[in-house]
């Protein structure tokens, strides 16, 4: 079973900031948190990865509280092209490296 829980869908408008939160209550000490973006008819694409506090790159920011039981992907000023499914992934480190994805969050950005 996946170790993560995310909202199934979210709606937003162009120019808004979007925050998608993922719950991972059973995260292990050595686990990193990774987010992926998937467009229709394409394979998922790595967006960002973090361990604690805050990570920022040219695409997004990732906020991780001190207890690490959740994480929030923040997309600044979304555009129509950000419409995609977003997956939060936490490795199953007690299962030898097998990586199980959750259901993902379908983000719809409207004009």
């Amino acid at each position: 079973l996946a170790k993560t829980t995310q909202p199934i869908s979210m709606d937003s408008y162009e120019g808004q900031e979007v925050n998608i939160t993922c719950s991972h209550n059973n995260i292990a000490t050595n686990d990193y948190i990774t987010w992926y973006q998937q467009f229709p008819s394409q394979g998922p694409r790595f967006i960002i990865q973090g361990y604690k506090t805050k990570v920022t790159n040219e695409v997004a920011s990732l906020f991780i509280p001190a207890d690490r039981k959740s994480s929030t992907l923040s997309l600044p000023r979304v555009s129509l092209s950000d419409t995609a499914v977003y997956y939060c992934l936490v490795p199953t480190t007690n299962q030898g490296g097998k990586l199980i994805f959750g259901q993902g969050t379908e983000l719809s950005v409207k004009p």
Partner: protein
Amino acid sequence: GAGVSQSPSNKVTEKGKDVELRCDPISGHTALYWYRQRLGQGLEFLIYFQGNSAPDKSGLPSDRFSAERTGESVSTLTIQRTQQEDSAVYLCASSGRQGAGELFFGEGSRLTVL
């Protein structure tokens, strides 16, 4: 190559036929994963290879499914006696770090079983 390469990109077959799907991972990546994605669904784990270790086959849905990988190179996913419910996109991903979650995906092989 620069990324993960999968072939064929599209495959249409008749029920009962066998199919082979190929994945060429990023050079030097020791970990390789296969996932299945049905229309409108999430990614379903199938099998995981790490270096020369025995693969984790726990996600294979039936004994009609098998996969091989030669060393740290190409992998082949074989589906025997295909059924209509096997219709899906089969995605391959590779990683340079075991279990770290940083995966590089191919574009997938879309399988349609008539």
